[in-house]
């Protein structure tokens, strides 16, 4: 024990006297840190977590491979270890001290970087800080132990350098520490799961970003602990005191034994993909945590309009809405987004969709729920109410969206909203009113609703969802396919085959809507609750920009644009009981739509989408359909 302590102490002293050690453990990671922080604009939100995790991993790799791997070889080559050979000690204290010394040299560096992240970049102290600390300690020891193995198997400095380069660079680049794993092609993503550093990086991220504890990332912890134990055992077994002692080439295969725990974990991950899904979710979470300031923009907050204002988004929520005064993005540590000439609205809510129906065809075979959801988000719809009678597929997709694995609007199921009644006739409506319905879906579009019934709907505050789009589509008018936004969400092949199936001439839709429009106008006029729902998934009502079309029909029916927009935002949110959505106000979820022009004056502008923000993430709309 005395020998262990003395050996550790003297080596800590020795390494501190070595300028290279100080450089590699302290200066080098700090250079990386500031470069990364600058690159990822870490001051603008949660990216600092990623920067810290990346730099930590790069530091741990350097400390382990270059610090642990080369030092022992140098001491052997310089006949230093030979002197210890004649002393009454075993290789154990030498191997163990290398690991402990590595830890003592590196841990302060990790803490200094944490302090910088905390004080200058607003990183939060994780609630599970003990898990974070213990994990960093285990990780540092594990990679230092890997370094010890390299020293054990390398016959010379040159050889150890080669082995180190062979391990260091793949680990650095494939672990996710330099590039997010979720950006890799599929095969490389799987390959990355066999690399020890991947677990170091994802473990730290899971702890810092997902706030998980050591127990929740036990496979990584176990694999790293196994590495430490195996490396110590094998290093001691293969330990060589003199440069003259050469190792049999076959003995180098011991490295493979060391990587065995990660091989097992890798096989498991390649099969379960847990870690890859987690990586996607973490990336999502980081994207959602950015701070944005949308400036000089017209804001429709769900009810009223601010002609020129600004909206600050932090951690996926609306932090503040500014009216008149012009805030400074830099002082707020937010990325500025110019909104001049644009209108910012709450993300649209479509209160009636059938996701497992394709709108272009009558069969439901092979309906692509994921694609339908992507089309909605592409069009600025951030929440939908699914009326699918068999919602299994929808549930599966909405769970993936909720986890952050995939992008799409929030999904509510009609069964979650009590007492919604689908109606076609006045008789249906009267029955629904008697049954105590909360919403009437479909209304009566071919029958005039008597004033007495309208009065009842208004009096009982029953939400009226007319689905004018479904009525309009019954005209089978080819012109329905000509909208630009629709052409963006529908693949041309699908569009053409649908067009070919439609009759060349058709009844004008205007006349067909007369009754439906009148019903809607009268309920609205009487002060009733009106909610927009497109009925997308019905024949020729396509997923995506359907809600825009619905609102255009409302305005044509004589509903003021502002009221129409409220019906697709704040009113729909109330019906769906999504309290955090449908409005722009402090504390609300930052699911927003920004369009060019002013939809309050010209409702068509709602299709001129400039930006979609979902839970704080600027949605990369062009890649929405590429996912998977």
């Amino acid at each position: 024990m005395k020998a262990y302590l003395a050996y550790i102490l003297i080596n800590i002293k020795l390494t501190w006297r070595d300028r290279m050690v100080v450089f590699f453990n302290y200066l080098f990671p700090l250079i990386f840190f500031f470069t990364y922080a600058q690159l990822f604009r870490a001051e603008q939100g949660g990216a600092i977590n990623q920067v810290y995790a990346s730099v930590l991993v790069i530091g741990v790799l350097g400390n382990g491979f270059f610090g642990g791997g080369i030092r022992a070889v140098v001491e052997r080559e310089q006949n230093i270890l030979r002197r210890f050979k004649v002393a009454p000690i075993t290789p154990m204290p030498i191997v163990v001290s290398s690991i402990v010394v590595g830890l003592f040299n590196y841990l302060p560096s990790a803490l200094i970087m944490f302090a910088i992240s905390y004080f200058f970049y607003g990183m939060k102290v994780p609630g599970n800080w003990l898990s974070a600390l213990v994990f960093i300690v285990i990780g540092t020891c594990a990679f230092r132990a890997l370094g010890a193995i390299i020293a054990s198997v390398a016959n010379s400095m040159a050889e150890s350098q080669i082995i180190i380069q062979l391990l260091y660079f793949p680990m650095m680049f494939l672990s996710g520490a330099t590039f997010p794993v979720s950006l890799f092609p599929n095969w490389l993503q799987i390959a990355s799961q066999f690399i020890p550093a991947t677990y170091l990086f994802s473990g730290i991220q899971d702890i810092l970003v997902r706030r998980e504890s050591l127990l929740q990332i036990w496979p990584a912890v176990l694999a790293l602990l196994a590495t430490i134990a195996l490396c110590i055992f094998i290093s001691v077994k293969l330990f060589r005191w003199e440069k003259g002692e050469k190792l049999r080439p076959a003995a180098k295969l011991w490295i493979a034994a060391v990587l065995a725990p990660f091989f097992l974990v890798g096989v498991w991950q390649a099969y379960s993909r847990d870690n890859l899904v987690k990586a996607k979710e973490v990336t999502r979470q980081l994207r959602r945590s950015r701070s944005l300031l949308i400036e000089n923009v017209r804001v429709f907050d769900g009810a009223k309009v601010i002609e020129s204002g600004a909206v600050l988004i932090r951690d996926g929520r609306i932090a503040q809405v500014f009216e008149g005064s012009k805030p400074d993005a830099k002082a707020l540590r937010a990325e500025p987004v110019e909104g001049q000439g644009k209108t910012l609205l709450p993300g649209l809510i479509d209160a009636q969709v059938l996701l497992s129906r394709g709108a272009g065809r009558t069969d439901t075979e092979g309906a692509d729920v994921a694609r339908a959801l992507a089309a909605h988000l592409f069009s600025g719809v951030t929440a939908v109410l699914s009326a699918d009678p068999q919602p299994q597929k929808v549930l599966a997709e909405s769970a993936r969206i909720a986890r952050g694995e995939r992008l799409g609007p929030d999904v509510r199921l009609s069964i979650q909203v009590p007492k919604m009644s689908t109606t076609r006739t006045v008789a249906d409506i009267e029955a629904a009113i008697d049954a105590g319905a909360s919403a009437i879906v479909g209304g009566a579009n071919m029958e005039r609703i008597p004033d007495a019934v309208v009065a009842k709907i208004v009096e009982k505050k029953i939400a009226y969802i007319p689905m004018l789009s479904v009525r309009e589509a019954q005209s089978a008018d080819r012109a329905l396919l000509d909208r630009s936004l629709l052409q963006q969400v529908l693949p041309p092949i699908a569009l053409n085959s649908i067009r070919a199936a439609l009759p060349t001439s058709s009844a004008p839709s205007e006349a067909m809507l007369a009754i439906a429009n009148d019903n809607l106008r009268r309920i609205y006029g009487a002060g009733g609750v009106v909610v927009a729902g497109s009925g997308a998934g019905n024949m020729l009502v396509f997923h995506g920009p359907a809600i825009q079309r619905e609102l255009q029909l409302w305005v044509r029916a004589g509903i003021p644009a502002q009221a129409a927009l409220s019906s697709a935002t704040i009113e729909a949110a109330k019906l769906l009981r999504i309290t955090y959505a449908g409005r722009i106000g402090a504390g609300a979820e930052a699911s927003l739509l920004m369009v060019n022009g002013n939809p309050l004056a010209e409702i068509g502008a709602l299709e001129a989408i400039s930006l979609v923000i979902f839970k704080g993430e600027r949605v990369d709309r062009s890649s929405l359909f590429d996912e998977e």
Partner: protein
Amino acid sequence: MTPPVMEVRGLHKRYDDFEAVRGIDFEVRPGEVFGLLGPNGAGKTTTVEILEGIRPRTSGEVRVLGYDPGVETLALKRNIGVALQSTNLPEKMKVREALALFASFYPKTVDGGKLLDRLQLSEKADAYYGTLSGGQKQRVAIALALINDPQVVFFDEPTTGLDPQVRLEIHSLITQLREGRRSILLTTHYIEEAERLCDRVAIVDQGKIIAIGTPKEIQAKTATRSRIDLRTETPIPDGAPPEALAADKWEFSGDRRALTVHAAQPARTLVELVKWIDSLGLTLADIHLKRPTLEDVFIELTGKSLRD
């Protein structure tokens, strides 16, 4: 008689295709300085390393302080001191720290400060190892070998590569140690070192001991004769030297002012020669006797020089 501190019987060491040690027997008695003398590659270092417990042997019996180095390695290492050939310490380690570090490996140690005093290293106690001269480094190596107050000390080529001045310093250190009743095993390829320091010497060549004994015994056993060189002021007249020299080889220089005689019984021959010159009425300018060295013995036994 007290039992020997080291006993070696029939020691063999074979590497893959090469037999470095081919049957070595010797013993070292308490308080004795024993030398293994031989050229590079003779098997000296291999032998010593086996005794130190850092190299396994192929066959043979070895006991050091009663321990079998191949089995009770740690116990042996605790009780011996070793100054290895060409070892180093980390450049940035201070002398004092090196002593403290090695002290931590042993259950029983001597005072590091006093040891440094004795080795005249006190001034350098806080110097980095990398800044020391060759002689200072060797003294540090000796200090480390003595930190556990060992009964047996091994010196493997203690002065190789050092300049003559430093070599003398190391020699006097080893002489001092010997006064402390320690047993010392020394390997060297310097004749003077063996002659000056060792109580007994074994001459090793090609993995075997070819002569063993005190330096005098070894010299006496050889067929090599002593040499007498004689010079006179004026030439020695023509004619043979006296009958007393009949058994010896002799040779005059060209000017007949010098005579070299290879004598079997040098003391008697010397007296005869002086008498003879005197009887010729000549003045003796110089006369001296040179006994055969271990070097001569080595050349005689192996047919080659020690220093190649």
